[in-house]
């Protein structure tokens, strides 16, 4: 059975933070969501110390084989999340990973302590890479900053700390190594790639915020290379993601050293994409197992 930092998973497919609102999906699809939950663990949207409304529209823009988003981390804030959302997410039939982001080490530490104290939470993902929020870029762009943040947070909890890496750096492997030195338990990558587009109707940037993050199959080769380079630089478990839309895509990430994969944008196109990717991956891996002895005979 696959596992991530000691958390047992039914299959190796989880969701990318910010790409699935299980509470809204439950209201839309009813109990069928719980009976056939598409992910082996659920990663929450990123929670910040204070509530955030999110960015002004326009927030999304379709691109070739992908999309740009500039959502801006709308959320109820730490206390609103703990009081209202966490009890409902605890009803999901899978382990819960809470994503958090803050603009100072002190605020990060407060969030980690408050979230980790809740027994419903299996692990914490640290968003140091969201390109939509100015302050989010700083830590994840710098190996020493990342190491220092982890050194602050590590003593605050024994629960796994997963660092979500930004791809918008020259050397993500160096940042991953910094996270490892600081005491992280795993890294997840990639977050979205910084990008923009021009609205042909206006000649101006299409997104209200001027720029956004690119996701979807368009980014998959970039994600694969970053997973490969991070694998070479650290011994940490890797949650691999970036444009995964099928079991074959997921198998590429596993082949390059990811322990677990995450589905993000594909869930927008197919609300059950996580289950489908897991099933396709299972049959891909079974085929490989069957074919190995045949290859040996050759």
């Amino acid at each position, binding site marked *: 059975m696959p596992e991530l930092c000691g958390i047992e998973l039914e299959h190796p497919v989880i969701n990318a933070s910010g790409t699935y609102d299980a509470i809204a*999906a439950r209201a839309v*699809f009813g109990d069928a969501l719980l009976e056939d939950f598409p992910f082996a663990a659920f990663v929450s949207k990123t929670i910040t110390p204070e509530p955030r*409304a999110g960015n002004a529209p326009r*927030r*999304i823009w379709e691109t*070739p084989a992908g999309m740009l*988003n500039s959502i801006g981390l709308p959320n109820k804030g730490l206390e609103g999340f703990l009081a209202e959302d966490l009890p409902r997410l605890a009803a999901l039939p899978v382990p819960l990973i809470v994503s958090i982001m803050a603009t100072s080490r002190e605020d990060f530490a407060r969030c980690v302590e408050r979230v980790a104290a809740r027994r419903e939470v299996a692990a914490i993902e640290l968003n140091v890479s969201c390109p939509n929020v100015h302050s989010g870029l700083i830590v994840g762009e710098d190996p020493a900053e990342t190491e220092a943040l982890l050194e602050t947070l590590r003593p605050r909890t024994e629960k796994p700390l997963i660092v979500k890496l930004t791809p918008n750096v020259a050397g993500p492997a160096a940042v991953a190594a910094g996270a490892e030195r600081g005491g992280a338990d795993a890294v997840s990558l990639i977050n979205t790639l910084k990008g923009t587009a021009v609205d042909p109707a206006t000649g101006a940037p299409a997104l209200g915020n001027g720029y956004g993050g690119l996701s*979807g199959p*368009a980014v998959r080769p970039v994600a694969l290379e970053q997973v490969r380079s991070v694998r070479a630089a650290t011994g940490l478990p890797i949650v691999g993601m970036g444009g995964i839309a099928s079991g074959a895509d997921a198998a590429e990430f596993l082949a390059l050293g990811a322990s677990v994969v995450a589905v993000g944008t594909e*869930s927008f196109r197919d609300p059950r994409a996580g289950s489908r990717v897991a099933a396709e991956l299972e049959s891909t891996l079974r085929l490989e197992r069957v074919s190995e002895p045949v290859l040996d005979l050759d």
Partner: protein
Amino acid sequence: MNAPFGRRLCEVAANRDSGGYRVVSLLDHEGPEPEPGQFYMLAAEAGWGADGGRAFLPRAISVAATAPGARGGVRLDFLLDAVGPGTERLCGLGAGEGVWITGPLGNSFAAPAEVSPGAAGAVLVGGGVGVAPLALLRRRFGERGVPHRVLLGFRDRRHTGGLDLFCGSSGALCPEVRLATEDGHTGLQGRVTDLLLPILAGDDARSGVVYACGPPAMLEAVRALCAEHGVACELALESPMACGFGACFGCAVPKPGGGFLRLCVDGPVLRGDQVEEVSHAYA
């Protein structure tokens, strides 16, 4: 009633012309019958992404009509205008082709008395391809004996689609439907709000509710006119939307007091007083 979980493949039953738009009919054997105002996420099974990597995301399209399917299930009729790679592909679908659908999604129009206590009648105001959900709403009001008038606005002769969804295939307009066209080729020369204004100014205006769907400028004009005359209204909005089920947070509509609604799960039908201003920025 909840939408079935996940997307499902439906067959195209028909694709016909309707005044410059297309009416694409799908056979759905799994979902419940949609309510007026609800929408589906649609993506062609084949050729989606064939135009330089687009379309990539499914398209949110509201239902214009329903009927019992020939072999069971529900026939869903969608009114489509080819304005980009997604709608172009959907407009080109042939009978027998497959379409991925998720839905029905979103809320629906409410009865007049639910929108405004004591209100009994309805004025339906549609513009362009936005007349679609009003066709389904008009049928519902007809079945329930809700008195209603229908005002429809179109740009020109090549954009006068969907009329047959209101009045049957005979081509004759039913008496309660009035038209405005910007080129004046039929109906009043002008805008649909030119037809609405005298109704709002009438003594009995507040005994009715306005239901509107159309381009952002039209919806904003309707919203402002209704607010000015103290008449309640429901607006079916459109917004860029990646998922349709609350996951992407893309379809943000500003609330009057600050913050945002998610149009897919909080709408697509909003009361006029839930919206600060209907703007091209998010529609």
